[in-house]
């Protein structure tokens, strides 16, 4: 009798486990289906976004044989979609400058080289000349400042220890080893090894790498910034530089930018809502940049309900040539200053905008690198930083599929088990009467 009772219980227990296993399989199957379905939906969403085609020209139209064509580089990248063209004009004659312009499909850049070299305004135009939107910025200054008390921020140190070095005094050479030209990706690097004729020494350089992509994706190095087809990623590295003998063991580095935007219907005084502003957002997701929960950006106001540009970065920079989380230091952005009256000298923006400054708003932005206790620039001495620049609303990180899947399965299984358990207990209570403790067992 006991044996039968035991086998009965055993059989029942096995049945229970089988039911449980079957339910778990069902749950997992449903979840996998759900995720597959989600991915399909996301896939179709991507197709709606315009895929762009990239093409590149270097020093377009510069007469062959002229000596000044080899004194610098101007790279014009066109990103064609089916309806318009976005131009990224990178100029390394003098100050490194980017002009971002959105024109009708098929517009070309035409440069009058003789006037361009002599510094005349209006020597670079589009053909046809009407542009839908333009935005320009230029790396005008590299700051070195003495941080005696380790206060980190440039606006807190003694002003007499802050030196600005004009970037037009660098000679930028193109690094052909690093170039990629294809329909999906254009990548090139420019290296400066001397300042005003003085070289930085054997391993000293400033390197700017530009990558333009034709569709969405993530960067290949930390902090894996997410880009889309309308953006270009810029990586800046400064390694073992010495500018005008201003480097001391307690020096920190900063960068100064000039930002210019063309504002339609600009009349008289500039209101705050027309200006470029700094935006700092907190993000929940640090999957791509472990430990960094913020995203900083410089945003232009939106015109015609869509036209806008941005510079976007994660506030982290790296003190090693190979980027590692252990080597990261902070990036500080300071309040933007108006530039009035507008001065576009010594940059491509002068060649492009010329005297047509009545519709322009210009502001200066300063950025510096460092964290308290990091040993200053001299500790490694290296700083690299990446940012995204582009047209349209800036791309933002989204929570990845892995996270959603884990949560769905993880919370789904106990939920299903609870429901099954409740049903099971109800049926058990209804079907079997309460056992008499003394007799049944």
């Amino acid at each position: 009798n006991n044996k039968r009772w035991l086998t009965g219980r055993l059989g029942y227990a096995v049945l229970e486990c089988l039911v449980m296993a079957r339910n778990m399989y069902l749950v997992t199957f449903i979840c996998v289906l759900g995720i597959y379905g989600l991915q399909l939906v996301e896939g179709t969403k991507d197709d709606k976004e315009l895929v762009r085609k990239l093409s590149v020209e270097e020093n377009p139209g510069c007469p062959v044989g002229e000596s000044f064509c080899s004194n610098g580089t101007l790279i014009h990248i066109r990103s064609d979609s089916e309806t318009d063209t976005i131009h990224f004009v990178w100029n390394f004659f003098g100050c490194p400058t980017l002009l971002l312009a959105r024109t009708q499909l098929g517009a070309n850049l035409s440069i009058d080289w003789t006037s361009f070299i002599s510094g005349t305004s209006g020597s670079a135009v589009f053909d046809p000349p009407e542009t839908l939107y333009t935005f320009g910025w230029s790396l005008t200054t590299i700051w070195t400042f003495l941080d005696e008390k380790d206060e980190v921020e440039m606006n807190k140190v003694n002003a007499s220890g802050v030196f600005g070095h004009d970037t037009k005094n660098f000679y930028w050479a193109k690094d052909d080893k690093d170039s990629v030209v294809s329909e999906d990706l254009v990548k090139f690097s420019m290296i400066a090894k001397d300042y005003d004729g003085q070289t930085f020494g054997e391993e000293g350089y400033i390197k700017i790498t530009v990558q333009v992509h034709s569709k969405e994706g993530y960067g290949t190095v930390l902090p894996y910034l997410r880009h889309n087809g309308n953006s270009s990623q810029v990586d800046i590295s400064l390694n073992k530089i010495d500018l005008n003998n201003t480097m001391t063991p307690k020096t920190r580095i900063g960068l100064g930018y000039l930002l210019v935007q063309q504002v339609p219907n600009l009349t008289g005084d500039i209101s705050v809502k027309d200006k470029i502003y700094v935006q700092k957002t907190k993000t929940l997701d640090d999957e791509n940049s472990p430990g960094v929960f913020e995203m900083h950006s410089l945003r232009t106001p939106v015109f015609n309900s869509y036209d806008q540009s941005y510079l976007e970065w994660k506030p982290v920079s790296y003190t090693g040539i190979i980027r590692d989380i252990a080597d990261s230091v902070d990036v500080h952005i300071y309040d933007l200053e108006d530039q009035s009256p507008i001065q576009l000298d010594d940059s491509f923006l002068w060649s492009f905008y010329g005297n047509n400054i009545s519709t322009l708003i210009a502001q200066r932005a300063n950025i510096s690198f460092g964290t308290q206790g990091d040993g200053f620039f001299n500790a490694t001495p290296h700083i690299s930083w990446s940012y995204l620049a582009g047209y349209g609303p800036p791309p933002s990180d989204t929570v990845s599929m892995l996270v959603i899947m884990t949560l769905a399965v993880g919370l789904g299984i106990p939920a299903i088990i609870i429901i099954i358990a409740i049903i099971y207990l109800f049926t058990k209570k209804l079907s079997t009467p309460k056992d008499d403790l003394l007799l049944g067992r």
Partner: protein
Amino acid sequence: MTETDVLCGESTSTRDYGESVETRGCTSGMCDPRSRFHRFIVLFFMCFVGFGSYFCYDNPGALQDNFKSDMGITTAQFVQLYSWYSWPNVFLCFVGGFLLDSVFGIRLGTVIFCVFLVIGQIIFALGGFLDAFWLMIVGRFIFGVGGESLSVAQNTYAVSWFKGKELNMVFGLQMSFARVGSTVNFNLLEPLYNWVHQYYQGYTCVGVVLLIAAITCVSSLFCAIVLAVLDYRAEKILNKQSSGSGEVVRFSDVKDFPLSFWLMSGTCLTYYVAIFPFIGLGKVFFERKFDYAPASANAVNSILYIISAVASPAFGLLVDKTGRNIFWVFLSILATLASHGLLAFTFINPYVAMCMMGLAYSMLASALWPMVALVVPEYQLGTAYGLMQAVQNLGLAVITMVAGIIVDQGGYLLLEVFFLAWLCLSLACTILLWLRDSSKNGILNMSIEQRDRWDNARMLQESLERDQLFASAVPATAPRSDFLIRNRYLSRIGAALPLSYDPAVRGLVYRSLR
């Protein structure tokens, strides 16, 4: 009470400082080992013995960012300081009691474990001075050998000096003291580091700080020596034999453990891996995500321990009064899920989440460990608790390493989701446990009155069986195994077990101080 000890198998008798014993030597006032004042002194030293262990256990967590920048290590390397603490305890959980009983004796055993503690911490500090990370790991390994076994020794001392209702209070006090030790560590170490940083920099600074922390281990050693002296003296005066930790660990018992026990182990394992690795990595998480200064980040981290110090005795009382253990376990896992969810997906003040986690953690500890005593017979409890702790330490050792790798590769959101996944698994285990239990006799989720009624009914049934057996010449069924024979014998003789074998108290002896 000592007569019935003989009947209970191979277990050695526990020391009993009862009334009718022969005494020699000093027996008046403070000298008398039985007096309240003397035992209060012993209690003080007993609690302090564990202080060094708990203070130094979380030293890495309190200085996480300093370790990483001074020693130049990644998070994945840093967590090995915790992981290697847990590895020796996978095996020591089984032999700790045996070592204390048969090999060293309680007095020498405690002193030896404290010596391990001191040596381990000093080697750990030496690793800092020499900038040798591998040496630090060796130090933590040795520290681990001493640490966990020390808590078994503490519990054994408690069982031998106190009894009955006092024992509950003593266990509670020891647990609270341990938690206070951890809290002091988190709040003291960052200011200490900043002070030392004025004189030393880099890895030397780390070494000096750890060496200063070793002072607490030395004080633990001192307390252990004093305890040994007092214990020896009491033994001589009261003319008693040395006590044992109580139970022998037999691996043959493992096959008799019911499914409920394995589900409980699963719940324990999956829950604790979502708490302790998080505390180890919490400081930098709070610094980065919530922009806290290092000292404040440490304070948030320590909230869990300080709440546990206060809440654990309170929840212990609650569970004692109301029963329904599984319900409390389920509730605490839900609360921990909610707090990890808050930390992962919102920017709400982390104090809220950490307070909730502290309360949930205390509740689970009070409800989960006594459940083992309800499903496993008393003489197998040693093996059961040893196994559960071994499984817990194995989980901690492995998952801590994985957590470090996740932080380096995937960031803190992914880490939190990882912990949430483990908590969901814990929830699943609890629900399965409840199902399993309700399909049997439902004792785990009964209230105290229901349990008493169930116990009475069972005893009545067994006495009926006994009468039946004596009435008929042949036994009704042939016994199946050792386990059943023992069970039958014990129930037949109707032995009244000594108080220390009381299920309610028994569970607490082997309850882990985590």
